[in-house]
């Protein structure tokens, strides 16, 4: 395998963009990434586009080709990727494989989504699933995990809510974030109950937005100079689908973390900045445990002690995470890589993590029998 580097990143602000199309948002992110990399469309040898809901919500297919043509990329392999919330990160993984495997020297990875729904309507995805037909809703799936975590480890509602308090404080510092207001613990706990114990502010918003990353070989990266960030690990796993187990973690995540750390030759103690899939507050607590930032069951105490806040031992979701930056489903996984690259280059502005050399991004998508259908872990390193 060849070494792969991130040589350019860019994204749109996440939020409500009712007047903008998928290609419009995608173009903005791709242009920013290309300009950051110092490349034109002719320098791109492959395209990978993550989008989850375009066919269902906008009636659009082949979105990758549409977006890449907007910035002049054509004639090269373009792949559209759908892996639910992990669509963007799976596109990143596929782009990584193409460059690492010698199939192309550069790749443009983009994630784009418009998932803001008209007021009063709910995002109803996966409606064909039997569990959804029986009343399963996303917040409920994660509430079940929260209930299990509370019963097994004594994790408290306050500890879980602190994830939203922390990430909203981070989001207030991020000009790309959808929610820019720092929330208090009483505000999170006192917002309307959605699925016990998860309240409204324990859940990420629906969002519109796009993010893009340019990947390149070492040789191409050298031309980009000091800005190149090495992709030291890229793992994608699928669930094991057997609910007869401890439901306080996802086996797919344990496996993805193990693979990515092994590829990188690094461990949890090396990681200085982390972005995780905090679609719901409880998720971040579980991810901190499964990624080895603390022991199983200790995620509640980790957030309470402030270890994962900016200025703490290992800041998690300095961008504000999905909870505050927002969650344009297919774009989130790419936006995590953009944030980690900014953090490692020292370009994260008011939310800069000091001195981080190794960053990790984790995201997962879909659910079946209590496990995720897709989970990715990426490890990025500033050499």
């Amino acid at each position: 395998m060849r070494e792969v580097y991130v040589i350019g990143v860019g994204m749109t602000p996440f939020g409500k963009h009712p007047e903008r199309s998928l290609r419009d948002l995608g173009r903005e992110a791709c242009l920013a990434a290309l300009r950051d990399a110092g490349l034109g469309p002719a320098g791109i040898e492959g395209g990978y586009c993550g989008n989850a809901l375009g066919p269902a919500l906008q009636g659009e297919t082949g979105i990758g080709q549409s977006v890449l043509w907007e910035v002049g990329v054509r004639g090269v392999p373009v792949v559209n990727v759908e892996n639910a919330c992990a669509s963007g990160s799976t596109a990143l993984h596929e782009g990584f494989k193409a460059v690492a495997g010698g199939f192309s020297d550069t790749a443009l990875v983009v994630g784009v989504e418009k998932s803001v729904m008209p007021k009063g309507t709910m995002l109803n995805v996966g409606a064909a699933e039997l569990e959804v037909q029986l009343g399963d809703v996303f917040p409920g799936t994660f509430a079940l995990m929260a209930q299990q975590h509370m019963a097994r480890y004594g994790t408290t509602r306050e500890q879980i809510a602190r994830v939203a308090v922390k990430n909203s404080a981070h989001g207030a510092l991020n000009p790309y974030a959808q929610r820019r207001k720092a929330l208090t613990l009483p505000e999170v706990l006192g917002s309307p109950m959605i699925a016990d114990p998860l309240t409204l502010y324990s859940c990420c918003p629906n969002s519109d937005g796009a993010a893009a990353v340019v990947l390149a070989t070492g040789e191409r990266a050298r031309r980009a100079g000091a800005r190149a960030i090495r992709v030291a690990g890229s793992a994608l796993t699928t669930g094991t689908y057997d609910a007869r187990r401890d439901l306080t973690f996802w086996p797919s995540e344990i496996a993805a973390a193990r693979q990515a750390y092994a590829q990188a030759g690094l461990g949890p103690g090396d990681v200085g900045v982390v972005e995780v899939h905090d679609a719901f507050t409880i998720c971040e607590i579980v991810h901190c445990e499964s990624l080895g930032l603390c022991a199983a069951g200790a995620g509640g105490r980790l957030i309470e002690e402030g270890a994962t806040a900016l200025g703490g031992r290992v800041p998690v979701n300095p961008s504000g995470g999905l909870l505050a930056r927002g969650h344009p489903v297919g774009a989130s996984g790419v936006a995590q890589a953009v944030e980690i690259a900014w953090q490692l280059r020292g370009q994260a502005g008011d939310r800069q993590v000091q001195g981080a050399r190794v960053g990790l991004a984790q995201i997962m998508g879909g659910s079946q029998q209590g496990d995720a259908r897709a989970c990715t872990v990426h490890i990025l390193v500033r050499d």
Partner: protein
Amino acid sequence: MAGSESVVIRSGLFRYPVPEGEQPALLACRCRGCGRIFFPAREICPDCFDAGALEETAIRGHGVVHASTVVHIPAPVGIPAPYAYGYVDMAEAPVRLFALFTGAEPAWFTPGREVELVIGPVRVDGQGREVIGFLFRPAAERRER
């Protein structure tokens, strides 16, 4: 209110109407190789593959709530809030089922509670038809106390 028409949530999951004199049952399958039970039934055992053949089996009766939550927003498919769901470990088969709860206040269905399988209306669909599915209610002896 029950509509004049009803539809089964998905064919092949259970017999409806429940045959007279029979307990409500889910149509599952069991691998002759490893004994694992699958619901909904599937064609191939993912563990044994060619070495295991699947035979029909039924899941019925009681179980114990393993996990639960109370949802305070209506489900997009048409279940009014609040409602409760979770997972149930069945007493007579090594299987944990996704379970929509009925027949008591949503907060009643905490882990450890004994419940029993019923076949009945889950919700009303967009065309006003009653959708028949499987649910779990407090076990009979519990309800009588």
